[in-house]
């Protein structure tokens, strides 16, 4: 899939940190204790190539939504930088910033709050088209009809309000709004998680078709492993504000090289009733992101943790040409490769 396209880096994140300060207790402040904050991102780095779909998975509180918001600059990172075509997006101002906002679009999770309830679909789409001067005024109605057709909504949808649509249809409107400005990149934050299963499939199909049709680059943020696996060329697994593993989808899913990835995959219920297990995939719970553990972030739950994991935070290191994991056990998952592949590709 990827080989046919020149791997050209479109967006890159370099050691991005983001924390959200908590309300401070006056006593703590007087005592000179460190200020409390939720450490949402703890040094995230990755590269997004033109035309690919990068899936970002993780459980709640892993920072995946924060990362998505940093990518479109809804949030500014505290440290590190996000580059778009090599340019630090924090340095963009005025027209350059608007240009960036046009080219990198976000689609939101909640179909009920992401559309202005007092604007008709025509106004929502028309606003995007006119603010970015995508079309001369006279051509806007025709373009609106075109966009609705693109997301497979009937043309009479234009004169309705968001509350007249079902959740799946609202997500289509959100997609149409993003596509109105003809972006290069779509950042989809839990695009379908609020929808019924049968409707999820429709929206996923639409996204796949649009990506082919419009040559979009997609960042697909989700907690549903099956969906991420289905959609993504590459997948990044996040835990407590860090990427613990990133690599080509099939490689990562069939032979995870980080114990957390493995736990996550094992915990996701198999669709095949014959492949049940009664072994619990991961013990314990997510540590508090206010006070993340020293050393490896996963050490509180990892069955393989040893002294080094409590002393030193592992870096993302190569496990293959495009596959990286952040674990002191470089050999982890290596043994599983042939065995799992047998199962995976058995006729």
């Amino acid at each position, binding site marked *: 899939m990827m080989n046919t396209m020149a791997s050209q880096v479109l967006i890159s994140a370099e050691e991005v940190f983001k924390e959200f300060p908590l309300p401070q207790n006056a006593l703590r402040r007087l005592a000179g204790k460190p200020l409390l904050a939720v450490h949402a991102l703890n040094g995230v780095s990755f590269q997004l190539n033109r035309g690919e779909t990068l899936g970002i998975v993780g459980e709640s509180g892993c920072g995946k939504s924060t990362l998505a918001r940093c990518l479109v600059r809804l949030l500014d990172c505290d440290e590190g930088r996000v580059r778009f075509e090599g340019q630090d997006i924090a340095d963009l101002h005025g027209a350059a910033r608007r240009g960036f906002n046009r080219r990198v679009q976000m689609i939101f999770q909640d179909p009920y709050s992401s559309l202005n309830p007092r604007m008709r679909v025509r106004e929502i789409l028309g606003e995007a088209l006119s603010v970015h001067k995508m079309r001369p005024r006279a051509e806007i109605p025709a373009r609106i009809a075109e966009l609705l057709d693109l997301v497979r909504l009937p043309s009479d949808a234009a004169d309705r309000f968001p509350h007249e649509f079902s*959740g799946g249809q609202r997500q289509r409107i959100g997609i149409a709004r993003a596509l109105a400005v003809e972006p290069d990149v779509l950042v989809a934050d839990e695009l379908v998680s609020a929808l019924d299963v049968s409707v999820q*499939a429709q929206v996923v199909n639409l996204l796949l078709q649009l990506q082919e049709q419009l040559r979009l680059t997609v960042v697909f943020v989700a907690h549903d492993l099956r969906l991420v696996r289905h959609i993504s060329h590459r997948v990044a697994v996040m835990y407590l504000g860090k990427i613990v593993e990133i690599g080509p989808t099939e490689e990562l899913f069939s032979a995870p090289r980080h114990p957390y990835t493995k736990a996550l995959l094992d*915990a*996701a*219920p198999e669709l*095949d009733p014959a492949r049940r297990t*009664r072994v619990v995939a991961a013990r314990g719970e997510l540590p508090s992101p206010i006070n993340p553990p020293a050393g490896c972030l996963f050490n509180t739950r990892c069955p393989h943790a040893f002294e080094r994991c409590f002393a030193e935070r592992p870096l993302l290191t190569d496990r293959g040409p495009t596959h990286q994991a952040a674990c002191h056990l470089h050999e982890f998952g290596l043994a599983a490769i042939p065995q799992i592949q047998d199962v*995976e590709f058995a006729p």
Partner: protein
Amino acid sequence: MSVAMQTATAPALEVRNLTTTFETSSGHVIAVNNVGFNVMPGEVMGLVGESGSGKSVTLRSIMRLIHAPGKVSGSVRWQGDDLLAMPERQLRKVRGGEIAMIFQEPMTALNPVLPIGIQIEENLAAHTALDRRQRAARALELMDMVGIPEAARRLKSYPHQFSGGMRQRAMIAIALASNPKLLLADEPTTALDVTIQDQILKLILDLRDRLSMGVVLVTHDLGVVAATCDRMAVMYAGRIVETGRVADVFAQPHHAYTRGLLGSVPRSGAQRTMLLSIEGTPPSLSAIPKGCAFSPRCSFATDACREAAPALEPIAPDRLVACFHHQQVAASGVSA
């Protein structure tokens, strides 16, 4: 799969012709329409469906937790007695006693101003003859049983001091206080992360084995069904459209809706291909289509489907389907 499901034993719970209706401003709404199923002792029965399919209302109807203006009819036989016809006094003994229930959102189902320990003891006081001391000991035992670490200290904690997964465990501990023979679980893991969901589901299975209780698990997640249930019933627009053993239904769905649901979930080995989606959205309960409720979204539908709703009929041992074209559906497989 360790469950014993001898066909010889009588079902623990027998639901027959269960119908729940609501009078609303927009008219007469049938939320549950003529639903019937059995739960064997020690069996996990999955009730699957999307929003508005009536799966949660079914569960609440069994427990007579439907408030006016809702009306429930039919029969729910529990060890020979009809729960729906039972006097309130007797029902109180069964409810929370022999039959316990857990909910999707433990934060709203637990009392926020009482420590967990008190809430467990409350249930023990209502349904057992234990004295105060024994109750305290039993509460501790239950907290241990559901895997809450530092149980003794946690007994004094309030629900808001627990994480989502721990709250769900606490709710299960409360439910188990009375040694129930049947656990009704309404989307118990929907609000939880996948690793925590996995822990809770496996906890429920372990408890089922240890206490040999039956479980009715309501969920919208087919993965959860595949990983935990013995038998399943698929609901759509208030009716059961297909039931059977989980392995059978997953291997060969006979109802177009089941097929569509299974096809909507991505499978490995077919990355970036079109999913077998179902067009349209589930109908609102106040506007259920005529004939088979699924017919407007169904690619197999014929005029017959739009005329009359097919009855739920046996097609194989332990397998019921409500579809005129179930053979065609079965033959077409589950890929797009």
